[in-house]
């Protein structure tokens, strides 16, 4: 990806994105923790089966978007980046498939180990679907000024 460093910083340091799936033509947006892989470029979110309606949406329509607008807790300046992509949902191993993202999760939420220690108590929460998003288009607003035109990022 030919992205400027300030865009890569957003992907590497922001805690959450605003993730949108489509439910029968209606956009449904929620704040979600995300993980970023740069080789190949993929954005990943995981979803408990408790909150799996968005996964049901994506199975019917895999077109999604991730907006990165909130630098809260990231330690970097505010920029706004939109990623549109195709989601692939993997629920083949609800108990362990998501665990490969645990090191990245732990970096963003160090206290997650406390929840993990009570895994039996929160058994439903820890049954998780992995959603991998292949980016198709990226637009970025430096300094978060969305009143100005966005910069298109080459994939």
């Amino acid at each position, binding site marked *: 990806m030919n992205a400027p460093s300030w865009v890569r910083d957003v992907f590497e340091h922001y805690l959450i994105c605003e993730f949108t799936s489509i439910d029968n033509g209606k956009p449904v947006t929620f704040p979600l923790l995300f993980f970023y892989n740069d080789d190949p470029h993929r954005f990943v979110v995981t979803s408990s089966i408790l909150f799996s309606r968005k996964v049901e949406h994506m199975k019917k329509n895999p077109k999604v978007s991730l907006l990165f607008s909130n630098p809260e807790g990231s330690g970097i300046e505010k920029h706004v980046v939109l990623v549109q992509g195709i989601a692939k949902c993997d629920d083949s191993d609800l108990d362990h498939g998501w665990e490969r993202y645990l090191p990245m999760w732990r970096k963003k*939420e160090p206290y997650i180990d406390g929840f993990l220690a009570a895994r039996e108590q929160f058994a439903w929460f820890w049954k998780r679907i992995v959603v991998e998003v292949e980016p198709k288009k990226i637009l970025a607003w430096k300094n978060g000024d969305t*009143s100005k035109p966005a910069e298109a990022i080459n994939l």
Partner: protein
Amino acid sequence: MEERGHLETRGGNQPLTSLDLVDPDRLSRFRYGIVTWIDKDGFPFSVATDFLLSENGEILLKRPSVPEIMTGGRVGVLFNHITGIPTGGYTDRRYILVWGRVSEDKGFLKLHAEELSEWDEKILPFDKLCVAAVPQAKRYLESLQPSIDA
């Protein structure tokens, strides 16, 4: 942050004003909104923008510079809040997601709210939200059953 499900959803066939759906006092506790619609290629298109509340309680969104025309179309607007913790993670999680239509209004986009979903962990703690979401988890597991049986 995990999606927190629908704490409260209102809507229906009755014509409602934005004030009927959205508490202006609660909305004023958010700094900006995320406007999302479906673009010409069928992808969701989201953009962050500032908003203000008129004296009449109308939600006025600052018009972002975007290539798509969304006026008249259905949009979702997310108002989200978290507080970052210096040691990592966050707290004070709450959001309001409003669906409706927007129209031009003196340089702003006026949101005509039709439906709402929200969560505030101070009102509904996360563990209680998880309990409320168990039926959805069961439905999801049941939907996987045919492939497990095959």
